């Protein structure tokens, strides 16, 4: 990561004690803002965080690639620096490695996230408005302010564990069985269901049997993801373990329990239940505390296009997964009273990612579809007086727009170089509906969703990373903090 410019404007240690006292501007404007980047697996969290941080650094002293972020457009961002992680439980976000991946020849995508990582970015800026350089108060107060943005990166699969905190083992088990016996899941779950059919829930709690059942269930979840592109796959650590110290605590799975029956002590169901509770207590609860506590702003990244192309069931599954994940977060306007009883998220942005896979004319459709998909969480957030918006964005833009003729019709397409390919391809994403589509909409599944090679970026921070609407997203999330 190249050194940010204008570091000379940051407070120097050589100054006198008087200079070290905070200015009125700093007292009013200095702030730490925790941004929750929420998204299922492959929704683009790592790319988003990399692009966000790199482009904010590139906006020091000029608009860079963020002209819609007012503080950047007005050249009020004076310096940026990456701070060391202050959290013992998470490692540093590999920003230099990710930027190097995009600057390599050929450029490649940064690897996906496998564990908890944190990035802290300090922005020194000159406030505008009442404390601006032109206002009398600004002249009197002088000085600059600092905004520290804290972002946590984590595997998207883990998010799906959050709803488990509100469920008992029997409730969860029953819900998973109902899902596994329906639709596209049923043929994939056959081996696991047949294995359990031969073993009663009341049979003795044999660890080996539990392990076998767990392995079959995990294979079923993996097949749901790779073959059917389904989203609601619990528990998330079965697909992405991270640095779980004791693997044996994961050796459980749902077992068939009749309604109203509790697992008998010493039985297979009781063994599974005990491990489920340990899993919740030692893995899910600490993760949730790290993720949701003290969050001020939230961006929810959704790969709507992939689900849309994967078919009706994948689309409905993604929607359901989003609904149950977002139910775990607390929305509400910031107030002193609420800060005393736990911070709340006062701005939520729902973003359909990979909008560079859609030509410009259809990006509004994608945005409208995104807004319609999250209608329920939006209403909940609005009822709590949070500010909510929906957008479409591409954290890293890989394509250009063009026009082609398909079946005698003139259509807008995007052009890009596929990953590991040498010849450019033209991609027509189909017609993006503005509302969740009815049954008649769904044709054949489209599974060849292209992965484009990222653009090669310069190593110099000021060049930034090309994107679509990232600056608008940042304007929504950070504008008041940089005002």
């Amino acid at each position, binding site marked *: 990561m190249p050194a940010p410019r204008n570091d000379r404007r940051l407070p120097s240690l050589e100054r006198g004690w008087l200079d070290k006292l905070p200015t009125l501007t700093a007292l009013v404007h200095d702030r730490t803002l925790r941004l929750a980047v929420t998204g299922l697996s492959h929704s683009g969290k790592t790319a988003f965080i990399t692009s966000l941080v790199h482009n904010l650094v590139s906006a020091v002293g000029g*608009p860079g*690639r963020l*002209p*819609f972020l*007012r503080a950047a*457009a007005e050249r009020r961002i004076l310096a940026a620096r990456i701070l060391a992680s202050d959290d013992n439980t998470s490692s540093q976000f590999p920003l230099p490695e990710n930027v190097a991946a995009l600057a390599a020849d*050929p450029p490649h995508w940064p690897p996906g996230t496998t564990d908890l990582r944190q990035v802290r970015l300090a922005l020194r800026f000159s406030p505008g408005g009442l404390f601006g350089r032109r206002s009398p108060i600004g002249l009197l107060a002088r000085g600059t302010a600092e905004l520290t943005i804290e972002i946590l990166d984590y595997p998207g699969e883990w998010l799906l564990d959050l709803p488990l905190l509100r469920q008992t083992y029997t409730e969860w088990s029953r819900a998973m069985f109902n899902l596994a016996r329906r639709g596209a899941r049923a043929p994939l779950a056959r081996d696991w269901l047949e294995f359990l059919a031969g073993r009663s829930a009341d049979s003795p709690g044999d660890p080996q049997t539990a392990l076998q059942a767990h392995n079959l269930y995990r294979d079923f979840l993996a097949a749901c993801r790779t073959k059917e592109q389904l989203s609601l796959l619990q528990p998330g650590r079965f697909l992405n373990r991270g640095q779980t110290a004791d693997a044996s605590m994961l050796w459980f799975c749902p077992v068939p329990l009749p309604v109203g029956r509790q697992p008998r002590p010493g039985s297979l169901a009781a063994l599974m239940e005990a491990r489920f509770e340990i899993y919740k207590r030692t893995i899910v609860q600490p993760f949730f505390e790290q993720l949701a506590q003290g969050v001020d702003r939230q961006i929810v990244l959704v790969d709507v296009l992939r689900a849309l*192309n994967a078919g009706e069931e994948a689309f409905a599954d993604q929607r359901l997964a989003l609904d149950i994940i977002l139910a775990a977060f607390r929305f509400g306007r910031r107030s002193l009273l609420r800060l005393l009883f736990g911070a709340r998220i006062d701005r939520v942005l729902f973003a359909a990612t990979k909008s*560079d896979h859609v030509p*410009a*004319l259809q*990006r509004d459709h994608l945005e409208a579809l995104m807004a319609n998909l999250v209608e329920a969480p939006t209403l909940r957030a609005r009822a709590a007086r949070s500010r909510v918006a929906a957008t479409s964005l591409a954290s890293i*833009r*890989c*394509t*250009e*727009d063009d026009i*082609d003729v*398909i*079946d005698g*019709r003139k*259509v807008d*397409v995007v*052009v*890009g*170089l596929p990953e590991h390919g*040498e*010849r*450019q*391809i*033209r*991609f*027509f*994403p*189909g*017609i993006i*509906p*503005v*509302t969740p*589509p*009815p049954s*008649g*909409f*769904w*044709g*054949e599944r*489209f599974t*060849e*969703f*292209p992965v484009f*090679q990222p*653009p*090669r970026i310069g190593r110099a921070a000021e060049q930034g990373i*090309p994107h*679509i609407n990232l600056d608008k997203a940042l304007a929504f999330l950070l504008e008041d903090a940089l005002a």
Partner: protein
Amino acid sequence: MTTQIEPARERVGPRVIETEKTGRLELGVPALPEPSRLSPPSLRSHSPIAVAATGIGILVASVVGIDLVQFIDGAFAHGTELGVTAAAAVVAGCGGAGYWLVAELRGLLRLRSAERLRRLIPVAVSSELKREIGVAAAIVARDRLLAEAVERYRAVLEPHHSGRDALELFSRFVLAPADRLAETAIRRAATQAFAINAVSPTALLDTLLFAARAMRLIREIAEIYGQRPGLAGTVHLLRRLISGAGLVGAVDLVGGVLVQQLGGAVFERLSASAAESAYAAQKMARLGILAMALCRPVDFQPGEIPSLRRLVSGLLKRTLDRPG
């Protein structure tokens, strides 16, 4: 609300099309090409007055032309040297007049271009809007103080930005600095209007000086927005100003309230003539804001209209703070 969706079988589904083209895309920020020429004005139906004016113009041009030919012919009758001198004088005169006419026409076209963009904004499709904003940017770029702002706008505008995005960036990067320049010009003119009213010995002289300063302010503001109006452009602007009488009335009302408030708060220690001078300054500021609204290629958005109170109070502060 129901959504009409094409049946799946008839719809063109998603697909990937292979091409022979190799190589990476260049996704750097491109510099927008300079629009090569101004777009022609929209066609309008011919009014009887316009037809008559054209006819009379042709008559005058013909009479002048014939007279000039006779003048040159007569000069040649007195000798070749005199004839050549007369012809050169006529060519110089015609060239000057032609240059003036072209400048007038260009000034008028720029004004019309700004007006066309304003009309287009609510209805334009993305590409059309981007093109028109490009034309407006080229016009504003002629002001040397704003050339850098236009360059910044062009540097941040990317191909994926929609027409609305381009409009917002244009407002933010180009029009905001232009508005600040215009506000400075208005403050300067208002200060002078204050002074003119204070020192003018007669009401007639006061009116004449005020009108002359107002005319200069209108032209200054037009130039800030890159329009450099000639005589025809200024007449066009004045016509538009007069046609905005409804708006003037509204601002008059605000002005009245302002004077009442100022009278209570500030002018209790000042003489009646000073209050009149302040009112003259406020009228000049009001005129300036109207001229801004007319010359801006994009209508003011809510919150962008300069506050009359701020303009006048800033002026009074400067006037009262001025030493001596």
